[in-house]
């Protein structure tokens, strides 16, 4: 084995095809897209150089400001929501349900495998007000309250989106964190219990620090996924009402493929890449420091 992995030619033969494919389908389009961000035009009229105009426009475009703010707000809330809900579920599996958790784990994981479009339609029906009130509005009516047009304003549509995405992803994080929790040695927990730690104290001082590495991994997963949210927004609100629930990804898609502004769309894509990079670096730094401390 050492002979094979120590041979440069063997490494090239093993890695070469994958590296070539990766370069062709990932790196080349990325560099190409970067090139487009300095141009103006489309595939019909052709492209011509536009200097830094797309980037200066990014700074002045209120739609970009709104989309960036929405993206960050959504990423923070959904990340917090899905990791916390996932962690609580994992604790429930390990400390309360124990061996009887299989059914609950399966049920909580079920939304993860559902197609996003189906989940979007389900939540549209759940919260609809017209032509018939959905279950949520029917419940409000049963308590004598007026129906609410949840998709009529950006703020209420935002919260429906948040609930939907936390619901559909918490099962995944629960399984991920469950794997971290079952790795905590029983002896450590037992000795902590003998020292008098139980309930919340046990979780706060023993379980939480020992599951921190897997929690940080979940955070990195979650932040990167939520910053790039696209499908669930398209399925539930399509960015509306107005552009009230439009994240950067959707605005990039609209600019490029609906409004035929490929150069500007590429500039928005670059902005999103930079945001993802900065957030990932920040989370990585925090996780490295915490790992060292623990």
């Amino acid at each position: 084995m050492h002979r094979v992995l120590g041979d440069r030619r063997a490494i090239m033969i093993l890695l070469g095809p994958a590296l070539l494919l990766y370069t062709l389908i990932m790196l080349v389009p990325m560099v190409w897209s970067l090139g487009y961000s300095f141009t103006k035009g489309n595939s019909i009229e052709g492209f011509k150089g536009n200097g830094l105009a797309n980037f200066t426009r990014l700074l002045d475009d209120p739609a970009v400001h709104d989309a960036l703010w929405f993206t960050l707000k959504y990423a923070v809330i959904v990340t917090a929501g899905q990791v916390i809900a996932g962690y609580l579920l994992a604790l429930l599996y390990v400390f309360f349900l124990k061996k009887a958790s299989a059914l609950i784990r399966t049920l909580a994981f079920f939304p993860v495998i559902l197609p996003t479009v189906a989940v979007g339609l389900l939540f549209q029906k759940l919260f609809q007000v017209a032509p018939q009130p959905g279950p949520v509005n029917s419940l409000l009516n049963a308590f004598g309250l007026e129906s609410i047009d949840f998709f009529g304003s950006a703020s209420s549509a935002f919260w429906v989106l948040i609930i939907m995405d936390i619901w559909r992803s918490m099962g995944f994080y629960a399984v991920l964190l469950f794997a971290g929790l079952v790795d905590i040695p029983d002896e450590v927990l037992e000795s902590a219990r003998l020292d008098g730690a139980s309930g919340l104290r046990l979780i706060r001082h023993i379980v939480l620090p020992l599951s921190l590495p897997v929690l940080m991994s979940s955070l990195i997963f979650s932040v990167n996924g939520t910053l790039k949210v696209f499908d669930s927004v398209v399925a539930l609100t399509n960015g509306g009402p107005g552009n009230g629930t439009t994240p950067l990804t959707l605005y990039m898609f609209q600019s490029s493929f609906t409004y035929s502004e490929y150069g500007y769309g590429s500039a928005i894509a670059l902005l999103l890449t930079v945001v993802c990079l900065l957030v990932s670096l920040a989370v990585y730094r925090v996780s490295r420091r915490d790992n060292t401390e623990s």
Partner: protein
Amino acid sequence: MPHRTIRARRLTIASAGVLSLAALVTACGGGGGGTSAAPKDFKYLSVTENTTTRTALTTLSTSTCKAENDALPLKVETIPQAQLDQKLQLLAGQDALPSMFAAGNAPALTKQLAKGGKVADLAMELERLGVLDQLEPAAVSTIKALYGGKLMALPYEYNIEGIFYNKKLFQENGIAVPGTWDELLVAADKLNAKGIQPFSASGAQGWPLTRLISGYLYRSLGPDALDKVDAGTAKLTDPAYVKAAEEIAALGKKGYFGKGVGSIDYDTAMNQFLTGKSGMFYMGSWALANIADPKQNKVGAENVGFMPFPAVKGGKGSIDQYPSNIGLAVTLGSKAFDKKTGAWVSCIAKNFGSTALKDHGTITGFKVNTPVKDSSEVAGTVRKTISSSQQNVLWFEALFSTKATTISNTSAPGLVNGSVSPQKFMETVQAALGSQ
């Protein structure tokens, strides 16, 4: 193994690798679908939502236009309307536009294609084929108004727009057909007081709401109201323009569109009107097909009336200026327009009008060469109105860019549910107009 053999084998492997990579790159490229050679079929790229045109063309292919179809078989492909613009751009970029295709969602895209020489000059082609006179002059003038004075589309539909109303509900509540905006408000008020939803409209689509804004603008400011915005001599943020948005927002504020108008889709809005749950429905004459269908229309075709958008007191517009359109426009590619395609187009021009009216109750911009009886009284009223109409106007987004059209449609529900002020609505659309 001799050294030369090893080298030869390496060379062969390397050559095979290069060749396969070249094949991969070629396959990914867009050259494969070009139409430089004569077309082998009469390919029509249609939108999934429009079933009438492709069904009528299929009927022609097996009847009146069978000879043309034998020479160049009709082949229909469909795509959802929401993906049409992307598909057209992709095909145009690859020089692979089909013989005939649904034009983009906003005229701006077709104009762009024409600028690149990818759309046939239909005035010239139809003149050459001797069938230009088969198009109704009103339809030709609507197409020219949309496409910068050029005939870039075939009028497979020709629609006028106005307000369909429930005659029975009007009679029961003592409402006369409104002639002015103030009378319309009184009528809506009366219906609302009786617990009947005055208007049904689809906020999910958005355009049925913005059509009301342009209706008010054309009546208050005259038929050139939106041409001035296009020319840059007026802005949607001018007080007279914002006033139109305010009037429509006020209808929403009073609850005249019912609950959750933003979630109501086109079919639901149509269903509300045709089941007697609402008194009025602003729509185009394409709705006649639904009105004529007893499965959909539970109030009866005899109980449906049609009125023009009412006059605005002191306004410069007149109620006989009807908003008109050619439905989902269909245009022809310039590269694929050869002799056989010409024969197809010629046959369509002579026969489509009668076939569509007879089989689908659809009014088109082609002459009806074989007389067909109207399906209902309201259908007769609409046809008479079309033939007597002296001046036509367009709709709110007709001259907008794709971006402004999308923003206008997606922001309209906010305007009528109060989450976006009229001033802000107009500012947003005007900003989108200026940004491209």
